[in-house]
């Protein structure tokens, strides 16, 4: 009953290992996952997220076994 949480770029540097597993019980949205994984309630405005490799919004739902990622705006190319 866990959710894998990944952080990338500047957000990864703010987390000790850039990868966490959090207990999925009681978590219903991506925002809940952020709070559980970071211990902070306010998601910075520019932060983007994905679930199972698909872009998502913070209010969208999560379930046991999901891979959730948080990252800043992309700057490739």
């Amino acid at each position, binding site marked *: 009953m866990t959710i894998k949480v990944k952080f990338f770029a500047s957000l990864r540097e703010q987390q000790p290992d850039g990868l966490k597993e959090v207990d999925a019980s009681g978590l219903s949205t991506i925002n809940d996952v952020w709070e559980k994984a970071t211990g902070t309630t306010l998601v910075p405005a520019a932060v983007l997220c994905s679930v199972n490799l698909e872009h998502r919004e913070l209010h969208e739902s999560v379930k046991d076994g999901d891979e959730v*990622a948080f990252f800043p705006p992309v*700057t*490739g*190319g």
Partner: protein
Amino acid sequence: MGVLLCEQPFEPAVEITRFEATLATGSVGATASFVGTMRNHNEGDSVTAMTLEHYPGMTEKQLEEVISDAKSQWDIIDALIVHRVGEILPGQPIVLTAVCSAHRAAAFDACRFLMEALKSRATFWKKETLANGDTRWVEKNTPG
């Protein structure tokens, strides 16, 4: 369809030739390509190196989706995206997009689309090393 993430420098002309060789002989009437190269300056500062981070699995998937989108919008034969990851130096190619089609208009238009779409959608992040040794994350892409 081709998506390639390279940890080492690549040669755009070699990649285009290799890509064209996978297509049916005589089918291609036009090949359009774009190469993005690392600058030695950004926002008024000298830049000596850059690290390109990506999200393994998601980045490749997104690039494949970008090519699929191009194929659905233009009458093209196939497309290629090559993108560097890891450590990169000024003057080295960062990205190559190439499109083969029967006629030039579709190749030009789809090639531009690939670049703009990957810059806005694909999960890459640049971290610059400045001449004084400081590092900083690039926070947004240039408009064009």
